C-alpha cells in the first residue's frame, strides 16, 4: 500500500483532473461565454447610458455603489449555471457509470466538481469588478478606486463562495438538473430575500442568519454613497448587516454546505 503522502498527492492530482474536466465542460456548453458576456456587459450599461443620455454620479463611490448593486444578479446566474447540475447531472445522465467506476475516490471527484463550479464563478465576479474599476479610472481617475472598492470585491468573492455552496448543495440532494438549477436560482433571487424581508418588516427581527441578507455588505461598505435600500444611513426600522457577523455567516454557509454536499454526494450511489 502507498504511504499517506503518496495517497494525498494522488487524490490532489485526481481532483485537479476533475476540475480541468469540469472547466472544459463549462467551456463547451458555452456557460463561460454567457457569464463572461454578462460580467462585461452589465457594467458597460452603467457606463454607456450615462455617457450618452445622462451624467455620471458625482463621486466614484456613488458610481461603484450603483454599478455593483447588480453583481448579486451575476453571482446568482453564474452560480446556477456552473453549480446547478454539477452532481445531479452525473446521476441523471448516467455519465456517472463511466466516471465513478474509475480508480478515484468519489470524494475527490465531488470536491473537484465543487472547485470546478466555484472557480469560474469567482472569475466572472472578478471580471465584473475589473470592468467596473476600469470605468471608474476612466471617469474619475485612479483616485476613484478606494479601499472600499477592494472591500466590496473581497466580500463579493466570499458571498460568491457561499452562493455556489448553496446551489451545489441542491445539486447534491435533488434528482433532476432542472430542479436543482431552478431551486438554486430562485432561492437566492426570491425565496430567501422574501423571507428576509418578512422577518424585517413584519416580525421586525434582524435576519442575520439568512444568507441573502449578508449580500447587502457588498455595496453597504460604500459609506460615501447614497444607500440603495438599507445600509448605513438607511431608513430607520430597516436592519443593516453587521460587517464581521455578515462575513462569518457567509463563511459558515460556505463551509457547512460544502461538507454536507460532498458527504451526501458520496453516499449517493448509481443504483
Amino acid at each position, binding site marked *: 500500500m502507498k504511504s499517506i503522502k503518496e495517497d494525498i498527492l494522488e487524490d490532489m492530482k485526481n481532483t485537479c483532473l476533475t476540475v480541468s474536466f469540469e472547466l472544459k465542460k463549462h467551456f463547451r456548453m458555452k456557460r463561460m461565454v454567457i457569464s463572461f458576456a454578462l460580467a462585461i456587459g452589465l457594467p458597460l450599461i452603467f457606463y454607456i447610458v450615462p455617457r450618452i443620455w445622462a451624467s455620471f454620479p458625482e463621486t466614484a463611490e456613488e458610481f461603484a455603489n450603483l454599478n455593483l448593486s447588480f453583481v448579486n444578479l451575476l453571482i446568482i446566474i453564474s452560480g446556477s449555471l456552473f453549480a446547478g447540475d454539477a452532481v445531479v447531472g452525473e446521476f441523471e445522465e448516467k*455519465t456517472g457509470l463511466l466516471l465513478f467506476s474509475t480508480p478515484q475516490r468519489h470524494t475527490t471527484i465531488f470536491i473537484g466538481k465543487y472547485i470546478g463550479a466555484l472557480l469560474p464563478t469567482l472569475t466572472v465576479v472578478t471580471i465584473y469588478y475589473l470592468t467596473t474599476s476600469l470605468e471608474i479610472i476612466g471617469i474619475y481617475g485612479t483616485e476613484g478606486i478606494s479601499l472600499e472598492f477592494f472591500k466590496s470585491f473581497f466580500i463579493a468573492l466570499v458571498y460568491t463562495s457561499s452562493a455556489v455552496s448553496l446551489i451545489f448543495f441542491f445539486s447534491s440532494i435533488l434528482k433532476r438538473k432542472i430542479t436543482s438549477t431552478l431551486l438554486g436560482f430562485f432561492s437566492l433571487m426570491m425565496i430567501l430575500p422574501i423571507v428576509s424581508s418578512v422577518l424585517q418588516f413584519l416580525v421586525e427581527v434582524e435576519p442575520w442568519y439568512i444568507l441573502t441578507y449578508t449580500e447587502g455588505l457588498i455595496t453597504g461598505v460604500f459609506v460615501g454613497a447614497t444607500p440603495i435600500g438599507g445600509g448605513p444611513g438607511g431608513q430607520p426600522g430597516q436592519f443593516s448587516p453587521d460587517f464581521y457577523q455578515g462575513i462569518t455567516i457567509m463563511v459558515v454557509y460556505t463551509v457547512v454546505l460544502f461538507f454536507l454536499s460532498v458527504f451526501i454526494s458520496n453516499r449517493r*450511489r448509481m443504483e
Partner: protein
Amino acid sequence: MDDDCIIRTENLVKKFGEDVTAVDNVSFEIERGEVVGYLGPNGAGKTTTIKILTNLIEPTSGRACINGIDVNRYPKEALKDVGSLIGVPGVYGYLTPDEILTYFGKVYRMSKEKIERRIEDVLELVNLSDWRYSKIESFSTGMERRLAIGKSIFHEPSILILDEPVLGLDPEGIREIRELIKSFQKKDVTVFLSSHLLDEVSKVCDSVIFLYDGEMIERDSVERIDQIMKQYRVIEVEFLDNLTESDLQKVRKIPVIDEVTKINQNKIRIIKNEGNPASTAEILKKVIDEGLDVISYSPKKSDLEDFYVSLVGKKGDAR
C-alpha cells in the same frame, strides 16, 4: 488466497430497503485469464454484482475483491487495472471522443504519448476513427456503445468487467465484440461479462455463473455444460389436440423428465435429466400410453439456454 484469483466475492449481499434483496450471499472466484459469463434473467442481480465490483455501490454485507484488494475500501488500488462497461452509461454529448479518452487516459495515469497512440488504436478498433473530433451528441446509440467499449479497454487493463457489452449493437457489431473478447483471451486478460445472449456467452466464455433471484445457482465450464447437453436432452412434442393442465401433469409425472414447458396450445418442450437415447424412446411410449395423440416427436440438441431454463425450473420448484 490463491495468487491467481483475480476477482473474488465473499458472501456478497445487497439489499435495497427492507424488502428487496438484489444479491443474496453470492460467492465466486475468477482466475487470471478466465473469461466468465454471468447469466441470469432481468432482476437476477447481475448488474448489482457488477456495480459492487466496480465501486458504484456498496454491499450490505460481504465483500468484493479484485487482485486481493477490497474494491469498496481501496477503490484506487483495486480498480487501476480494471476496465469496465456498466449498463447503458450516458456520454458527455458536448465533448468529443478524443477529449473523453484523453481525460480517462489521464485518470489511469497514461503518458501523453501513450494516450495519443491508444486513441488512434482504440478508435480504429471500435470503428470510430472518422469521428475522433466530432461531438458525441451527434452519435447514434451503437456508436455511443462502441465508444463506451473503447473507453473500457483504453488503458489496456488486465481485467475487464462488462455488463451487456453488445447491447444496442447490430449483428456486425456483436461479431466484432465477440472477436475482441476472444482476442483478450489470448492476451491473458481476465474477462467477467454479463449477458442475456446465452448463445454469445457460450461462444466466448470459458465458464458461466448462473444467477437467479439474487442467488448463485450454478457454476460450470461451458465445455462441461456442452457435454451434458450434447446428448439429446430436449424433445419437442406436438399433439393433435390442445393440451389441458391435467395432460401436462400426466407428462410431468413420467420419470427422467426434468422440465415440461408449453410452447403453444398443442406443443411442449420436454427436458430430460439424462442423455440416454433409450429414455427418449421410453418417454414417447409413456406419452402415447397416457392417451395423448402425438403428431410430431423431435429430439433436439440442447444448448446453454436449455441448461439455464432447466436450472431455473429446478430452482422454482424448490421454492
